[in-house]
């Protein structure tokens, strides 16, 4: 028996990067990934790749920061699939800049996608999870939300916000058997980090106790554990996947 057999798993920002990795690993565990992303072409490509590996997946376009759009998408997903067992708030962006040079728009955009997007999906999906009296919500935060980082005050605020949001919602929904946890990845190899200069990557690696970057798989495996019944007594937690960077 696979660990997530037939579970309907909505994963935001999952056409690429960590989100796609989660979708792929979830499918391998028997889950039905629902890919949410902002571009239809990216979704189509992701679903095509998953199909190629023999998995079934579905996709819906949504701008996670748009409250009404998210509401409509969730309604449609319920119509098509009848339930949502797992929600993974993974969609996130960065707009790095030192505080003094940060534009208002850089601040707003990051908070809108990372925090408001998480609120939008969590609120809409929790309605159905309440009725089901079961559900798992996992928010993909970041170690930056715990330790801060020069040049990422907006991103740090958003990720710290997600962690605090998760804890509050974990308390609100606990009586209905809905678990809410955060994952704080450290330095993970993705398309997003592939563009970084070699020197920067080297510096990062030096600061990590395990002396290497993490892989998407490392994050996905924790997601599977938290989403499965193996983690049935774990809620309100933030778990780092960071090679020991934050202790």
């Amino acid at each position: 028996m696979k660990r997530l057999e037939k579970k309907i798993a909505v994963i935001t920002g999952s056409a690429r990067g960590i989100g796609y990795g989660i979708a792929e690993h979830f499918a391998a565990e028997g889950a039905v990934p629902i890919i949410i992303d902002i571009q239809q072409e990216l979704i189509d490509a992701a679903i095509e790749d998953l199909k190629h590996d023999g998995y079934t997946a579905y996709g819906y376009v949504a701008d996670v920061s748009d409250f009404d759009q998210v509401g409509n998408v969730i309604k449609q997903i319920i119509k098509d699939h009848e339930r949502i067992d797992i929600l993974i708030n993974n969609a996130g962006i960065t707009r790095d800049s030192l505080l003094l040079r940060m534009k208002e728009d850089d601040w707003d955009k990051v908070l809108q996608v990372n925090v408001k997007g998480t609120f939008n999906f969590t609120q809409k999906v929790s309605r159905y999870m309440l009725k089901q009296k079961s559900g798992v919500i996992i928010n993909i935060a970041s170690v930056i939300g715990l330790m801060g980082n020069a040049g990422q005050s907006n991103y740090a605020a958003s990720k710290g916000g997600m962690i605090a949001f998760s804890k509050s919602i974990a308390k609100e929904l606990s009586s209905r058997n809905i678990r809410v946890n955060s994952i704080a990845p450290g330095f993970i190899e993705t398309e997003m980090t592939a563009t970084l200069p070699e020197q920067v990557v080297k510096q990062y690696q030096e600061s990590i106790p395990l002396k290497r970057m993490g892989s998407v798989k490392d994050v996905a495996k924790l997601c599977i554990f938290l989403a499965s019944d193996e983690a049935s007594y774990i809620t309100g937690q933030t778990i780092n996947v960071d090679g020991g960077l934050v202790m």
Partner: protein
Amino acid sequence: MDVFKTVKELIVEELSVDEGQVTMEAKFIDDLGADSLNMVELMMAIEKAFESFNIEISDEEAAEMTTVGDVVKYIKEKIE
């Protein structure tokens, strides 16, 4: 329309209680075993059921409704 009947149906569904328990005097929390989440869900269900009357129950108003009768009275006042 029979407001009490509609409200009763919603309560039976949302709180999983028997129809007989839902009297005008019944208290949501003490008699019908509702918790704060049930109350939010019930108020949302009521708003939806009476959508055509544009009823929007504020948190303050909801907090004051402790019995089934309170809710029925509130809706009747709104739709008249």
